[in-house]
């Protein structure tokens, strides 16, 4: 039975009460810190001022000579995928802003489970409902019953021999995915959560701003000042993060949603695929292939409604398994998010 006072129990288990005030040890630490810094402050600016001046002079020279470094990520301006995404941007830009909406979807991901010498793969499927109301001020996310389905006949046999456990039903049962796996990606922890309203509207500037943001904030538990990270494959990362924004944030200003489509239209490596989504509906299919680390080569698929600014489905498909998903064969849908209703 669920524990209604789980947070109270957690508060009561607080193992350490804070000191009323800093102690002698703290005083010593403070003295050590401020002493060490004072000498650096005196000398450092003098060392790097000439270097900054030198860099500025080089930059000026390059500008005068009209020389510029090649862009890290090319900007694509032609092709089927570009055209499809620019058309989607126009549809989005023509919309009225939405402040209240509801998305009902089914999410799924493959889990590999090992217990008592048995190993099997099961697809975890669960409904996800996103509700935005009260003029956009209230957002909620709810998850329905989780269901496990073995992938193959051999998996079904092993699953049955394991007692056909329900997800999270015990320490030996398959565990539901962690907090972040509402929509799976492959860069484990590099997740864009910046404020889009503060981002530039120019599509190329937007993608740079998103990459800068994730370099600063994307991986909170390893982030230290000065240790910035960028995704290994920036185009695939931007495609996936753009997809997540488009599938969730219908309350963005229409021009902002259009900007996300335009940003994606300029990404290299995006292709169009056949015209139906995983539920068999007419769709514009767009894909990008990503060589990930632990998940091998994966294909990220986005299916758009050809008539309206709506994401119909997102899928990730194994092209070549890696160390983390070695048990899957090429062509397996690893994860999916299929919208059933948007109202």
């Amino acid at each position, binding site marked *: 039975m669920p524990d209604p006072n789980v947070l109270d129990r957690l508060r009561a288990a607080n193992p350490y009460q804070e000191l009323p005030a800093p102690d002698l040890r703290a005083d010593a630490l403070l003295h050590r810190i401020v002493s060490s810094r004072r000498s650096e402050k005196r000398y450092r600016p003098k060392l790097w001022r000439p270097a900054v001046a030198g860099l500025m002079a080089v930059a000026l020279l390059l500008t005068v000579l009209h020389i510029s470094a090649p862009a890290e990520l090319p900007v694509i301006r032609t092709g089927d995928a570009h055209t499809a995404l620019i058309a989607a941007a126009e549809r989005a830009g023509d919309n009225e802003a939405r402040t209240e909406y509801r998305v009902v979807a089914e999410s799924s991901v493959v889990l590999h489970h090992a217990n008592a010498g048995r190993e099997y793969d099961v697809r975890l499927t669960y409904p996800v409902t996103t509700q935005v109301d009260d003029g956009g001020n209230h957002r909620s996310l709810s998850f329905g019953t989780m269901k496990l389905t073995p992938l193959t006949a051999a998996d079904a046999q092993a699953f049955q021999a394991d007692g056909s456990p329900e997800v999270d039903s015990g320490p030996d049962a398959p565990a539901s995915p962690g*907090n972040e796996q509402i929509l799976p990606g492959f860069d484990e922890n590099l997740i864009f959560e910046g404020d889009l309203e503060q981002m530039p509207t120019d599509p190329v500037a937007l993608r740079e701003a998103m990459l800068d943001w994730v370099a600063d904030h994307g991986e*909170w*538990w390893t982030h230290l000042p000065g240790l910035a990270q960028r995704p290994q494959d920036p185009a695939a990362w931007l495609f996936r993060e753009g997809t997540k924004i488009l599938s969730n944030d219908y309350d963005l200003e229409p021009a902002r949603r259009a900007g996300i489509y335009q940003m994606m239209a300029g990404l290299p490596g995006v292709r169009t695929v056949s015209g139906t989504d995983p539920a068999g509906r007419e769709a514009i299919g767009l894909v990008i292939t990503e060589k990930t680390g632990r998940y091998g080569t994966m294909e990220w698929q986005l299916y758009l409604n050809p008539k309206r600014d709506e994401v119909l489905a997102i899928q990730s498909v194994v092209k070549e398994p890696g160390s983390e998903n070695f048990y899957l064969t090429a062509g397996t849908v690893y994860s999916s998010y299929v919208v059933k209703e948007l109202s």
Partner: protein
Amino acid sequence: MGDQDDFEELFQRHYPKVLAYASRRTEASRAHDVVAQTFTAAWLHFDRLPPEPLPWLYRTAANHLANENRSSRRQERLAARLRGRRSTPVPDPAVQVVEDDHLRAALRALDPVGREALLLISWEELDYADAAAAMGCSVATFRVRVHRARRKLEQLLAMDPIGQEAADLAVTPTIPAHPGGASDA
């Protein structure tokens, strides 16, 4: 001297909180190291600290804790290789200090992000905005994290107590071993 006075004021105000934060997640000697590293970083980056620096301090302390945990695991793996055998999992130190066995085992079974979300609001008593800042995410995302972690913790606590041996061997990876990514919802 203006910077130094301001920093000293910040230090006096937040030292007990940051020490408490670290002490709730690791043993006493390491907690003091983490606090020292955290305030040293704060001093080095003092001109860039946000107006309310406590979430930043917690976040920096969390990063130092994570780095120390990784370092411990690397040392354990190396020592095991030198001994010529496979390494045994190093228990996650993050919640070793909790006395309630059942709760400790359940907390270990949570993924680190969800667990941290719950601890920030229950032990550090942060509101959602500050806790989200401490985790470097939006408030909406933080709400989702709390919702899911709380539900999972309730389920775990509703189960029979997990055996102590299993709990001691349970290792929660510092970085979740699943692909993941969520937009605000």
